[in-house]
């Protein structure tokens, strides 16, 4: 059973060729591929083996798992999770304790070198990684062990991708993203706090269908979903271009749907699919609901100067530096003044007196 292809699995479940075509068309749509690629998807599904997937949860809030499971799970996504062999997920699995750990080890051994590892949450390093442990074993050690035989790692959510909330100042647990610990395996970052569910599923579907990583940008994110910024696709862009901004929540401008730049929207510097794919099966996204973008799929978004401070304001106030500079300038100025005055006085004193007698000599 483990070696079945997707097509064989569907046929075994009594799904006709029509159903298979429908599945492939919907998958291609979800992967943001053109419809002409549905045939390629069908080809891949007919030959791809059911892969093993291990989900590791580290220093996280479980929001990423919630996002993925709370999506209304159209048949496509549940089918996807039926067809992948999700061999280990602490929150979702029925097993617990040593039995679960044993199952994980067995799955790893069976598929050594070929299994996919999904990670959500950051990994604390301080004090030997003691701030996140399972049964006395640090998450750091678990990650290293499980990653050894992985074919690829998907960092789900901003915590696993860039450190996220635990990484924010002052980072008391020494949290780091997955990419700082594992450097010898391909890593896909799927950031967001949480990521859009369909983005998570699409990345998995891409890997499961084609067996390769999708095209990634400079920060390791799939270009299909993170290639553009929110600002580039925002429907409120005409207001930005015309200079019409809401000044406070629920004022006239806000009620008219004007741009939220002055209310701290980080749309221009945030890359994600929120403005096109949206949330809750395309219902809405923060800006459409009247709140500025938090920038949650970018590194260090917690330390980017406050959610309600605009992109043009300083992150740390400059008044301290300014006062110090003025004081230092005044002090140096006074010192320079006194030195110059003294030099002038000395010069005047040293200047030889010339009398009319000297001249007549």
């Amino acid at each position: 059973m483990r070696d079945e292809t997707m097509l064989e699995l569907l046929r075994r479940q009594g799904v006709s060729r029509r159903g298979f075509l429908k599945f492939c068309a919907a998958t291609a749509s979800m992967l943001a591929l053109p419809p002409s690629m549905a045939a390629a998807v069908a080809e891949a599904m007919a030959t791809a083996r059911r892969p093993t997937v291990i989900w590791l949860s580290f220093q996280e809030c479980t929001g990423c798992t919630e996002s993925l499971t709370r999506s209304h799970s159209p048949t496509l996504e549940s089918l996807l999770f039926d067809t992948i062999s999700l061999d280990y997920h602490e929150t979702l699995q029925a097993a617990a304790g040593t039995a679960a750990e044993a199952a994980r080890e067995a799955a790893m051994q069976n598929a050594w070198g070929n299994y996919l590892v999904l990670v959500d949450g950051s990994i604390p390093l301080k004090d030997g990684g003691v701030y996140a442990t399972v049964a006395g074993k640090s998450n750091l050690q678990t990650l290293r062990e499980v990653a050894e035989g992985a074919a690829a790692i998907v960092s789900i959510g901003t915590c696993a991708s860039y450190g996220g909330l635990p990484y924010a100042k002052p980072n008391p647990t020494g949290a780091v993203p997955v990419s700082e610990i594992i450097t010898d395996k391909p890593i896909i970052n799927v950031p967001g706090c949480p990521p859009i569910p369909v983005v998570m599923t699409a990345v998995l579907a891409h890997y499961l269908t084609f067996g390769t990583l999708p095209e990634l940008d400079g920060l390791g994110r799939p270009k299909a979903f993170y290639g553009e910024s929110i600002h580039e696709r925002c429907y409120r862009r005409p207001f930005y271009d015309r200079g019409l901004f809401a000044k406070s929540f629920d004022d006239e401008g806000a009620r008219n749907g004007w741009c939220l730049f002055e209310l701290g929207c980080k749309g221009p510097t945030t890359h994600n699919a929120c403005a096109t794919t949206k949330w809750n099966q395309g219902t809405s996204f923060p800006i459409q609901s009247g709140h500025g973008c938090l920038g949650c799929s970018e590194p260090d978004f917690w330390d980017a100067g406050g959610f309600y401070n605009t992109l043009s304001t300083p992150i740390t106030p400059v008044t301290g530096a300014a006062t110090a500079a003025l004081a230092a300038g005044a002090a140096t100025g006074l010192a320079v003044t006194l030195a110059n005055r003294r030099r002038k006085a000395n010069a005047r004193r040293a200047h030889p007196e010339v009398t009319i007698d000297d001249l007549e000599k």
Partner: protein
Amino acid sequence: MSGLGDIGIAVQEPGGDANARAVLREIETLLERLLASGEGGSIDLGGLPLSGADYELLEATLGHGEVSAVIDSLGPTDVIETAIPGVWWLTHCNAAEEVMAEFIEVGWCPQIVLAAQEDVSDGLQRLRAALKEDGNAG
């Protein structure tokens, strides 16, 4: 104390119907190609940011033609031929009748409607088995 219903909200429909016009132009091009070379094409409506006004324009322009079909596999899929022959509107739903994907296909007949080789051979096996039983019984 006022309730949630008293909070004044304005429901905004973002955007106009410019995207729909672009889709209609693409359908025009695909139809021309179909007539010239026999090869049609497909447009994924889910891949475009279409607003309510976009859908209204598409539905108003394309209309409903002679053919309606429902394919029951992994949930219902509605196939209708629009009032423009050769232009088909496919809506794939899951078992809970939620829309999973929507396509506009331009062609003589949508691929998914045709019977497939392996399904036909499976069906033939089943028919032969049923006839053999009939033969035994009768």
